[in-house]
């Protein structure tokens, strides 16, 4: 894949407020890239600097090998789907979609064909004559997509496009967006605060905190090997236990209070192997309650059920183990014949040192 967007040393100040701190980033042709982070982390600002709505205080933004410093948004090879969709309420659906074709020099008939194609692509064939203000949220979003894609941009920028939709519609549109992106082959850059959305849709994700990129990786790496505690806490749920480590040649011997001892290779220490006090991260689904007939695990420990939260497909247990103050959360699938334990039940839990991350 070839490099399409290259940000080098991008800084952005609003007065004294440092909104973007030294962003270095390359995004490839055809990639589905996500900017993920809590609100106020600078992800939307970064998207808007790529679109050209915000200038940079220093650093360069290159798109397709061209420095964008003096290129206004209307001349950039990017198009945007706005958070509010910004569907022009005084125009019809077709007029909205054709908006960007005004200066294209296309004939009326060609424009109409292009609009029909774009509407068909987003599943709104036959909606052209409708008034824009009569559309539902999902339909507005499709119009916004069609309006941007009809111009065949090199990059499509999506600013929290699904946040205004209800849960069902959101999940549906996630799948549609992936399908659409594969069909058109255009680079998508998505801004979202929803980690699940980013994991589901992206080829790569940049997690941002306070104006900087905390980690840039594919979804699986991000989830399984977060490179810092704040990334681990932001993506999914993670238990943390304070333990001790002593470094060896290949990694470290780690004592996990309440669970036991184990040897962990260096790759599970994203910030480098250390000796002494460490924080050990364990994902809830990598722990398990041991039921009768389960295979013998690599490691096991005693625990008491402290809290049970039943979700239907899953049950989340908070269990107490000795020497650890905070209960550990365990996620269990509700398989056939598997009982739901009561609060106070004594049980054994299984754990696996290969799933630990140590900071």
């Amino acid at each position, binding site marked *: 894949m070839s490099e399409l967007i290259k940000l080098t040393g991008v800084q952005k100040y609003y007065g004294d407020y440092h909104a973007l701190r030294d962003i270095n980033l390359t995004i490839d042709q055809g990639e589905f890239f996500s900017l993920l982070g809590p609100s106020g982390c600078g992800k939307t600002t970064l998207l808007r600097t790529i*679109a050209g*709505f915000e200038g940079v205080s220093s650093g360069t933004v290159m798109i397709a090998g061209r420095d964008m410093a003096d290129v*206004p*948004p*209307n*001349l950039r090879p*990017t*198009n*945007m789907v*706005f*958070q*509010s969709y*910004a569907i*022009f*309420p*005084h125009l019809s659906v077709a007029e909205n979609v054709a*908006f*960007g074709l*005004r*200066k294209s020099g296309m004939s009326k008939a060609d424009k109409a064909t292009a609009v029909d194609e774009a509407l068909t692509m987003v599943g709104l064939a036959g909606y052209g004559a409708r008034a824009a*203000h009569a559309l539902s949220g999902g339909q507005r979003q499709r119009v916004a997509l069609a*309006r*941007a894609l009809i*111009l065949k941009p090199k990059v499509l920028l999506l600013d929290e496009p699904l946040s205004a939709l209800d849960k069902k519609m959101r999940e549906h549109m996630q799948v549609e967006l992936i399908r659409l992106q594969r069909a058109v082959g255009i680079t998508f850059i998505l801004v979202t605060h929803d980690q699940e959305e980013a994991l589901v849709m992206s080829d790569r994700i940049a997690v941002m905190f306070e104006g900087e990129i905390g980690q840039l990786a594919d979804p699986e790496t991000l989830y399984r090997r977060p490179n810092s505690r704040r990334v681990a806490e932001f993506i999914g749920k993670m238990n943390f236990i304070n333990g001790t480590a002593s470094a060896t040649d290949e990694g470290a011997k780690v004592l996990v209070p309440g669970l036991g001892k184990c040897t962990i290779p260096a790759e599970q220490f994203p910030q480098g192997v250390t000796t002494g006090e460490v924080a050990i991260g364990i994902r809830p689904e990598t722990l398990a309650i041991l039921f009768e007939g389960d295979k013998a695990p690599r490691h096991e420990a005693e625990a008491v059920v402290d809290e049970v939260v039943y979700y239907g497909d899953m049950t989340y247990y908070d269990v107490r183990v000795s020497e650890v103050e905070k209960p550990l959360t365990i996620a269990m699938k509700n398989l056939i014949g598997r009982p739901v334990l009561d609060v106070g039940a004594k049980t054994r839990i299984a754990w696996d040192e290969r799933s630990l991350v140590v900071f």
Partner: protein
Amino acid sequence: MKLRIYALAYLLFLYAPIILLPLFAFNDGTIIAFPLSGFTTNWFAELTENKALHAAVRNSLFIALMTAIFSTLLGMCAARAGAMANFPGKRGIIGFVMLPLVLPEIIVAVSLLVILRQVLGVNLSNWTIIAAHVLICTPFCIAILNGAFQNLDPSMEEAALDLGESRWSAFRLVTLPLVMPGIISSMLIAFTISLDEFIIAFFLTGTNPTMPVYIWGLLRFPASLPVVMALGTLLVALSIILLTIAELLRRRGIKRAGGTDKGGFL
């Protein structure tokens, strides 16, 4: 319930003079007092023959039209700046432009009289009144246009830019149509205020009086009072029509820009 009766009584108090106006305009008697003596349309007929009045009305209409155009233009600049990013001193600057709203009109009148006559030596004319009316109407225009501009989603214009339009054509193709009802409503309000304004016009009027200045002269002659009543009836009817159009447009503008109506001109 008690509150509703009170509110209705209050409305009656507000409308009392306006209700009396047509009664005397159609009353066949030269004294403006009860009891009424009979029905006539003579006073309206007299209106059509009064040359001096016609000239005054023409003056006032010209002044009101110019005022409507210029104060709405200035109001658009301020309202649009108000809806954009904050810059240092923005609140103070807009507050200063809004100041004539609370300033006693006589202060505005005498200070303009001094600067125009004594300092600049300008001859008083319709244009001196227009200058003053633009000053006092602009705050009302800003108040109305603020509603239109602030309800506008800023990403609308950005979307147009993003789709390849220049800044000016983005404004022309997207923002302008969306705020147009607000613009017309603002012009109608400025027109109505200017048409009715007396305190400042009396100070700044040149050799040709405006309509309110002319009416002021008539009020001293009891014989001309029934004609004034007839004129007043027409003016009230005209104002109500203009204001109703303005209000309907203001509401439509807010709706069109996708906002919710918070009510009221101010």
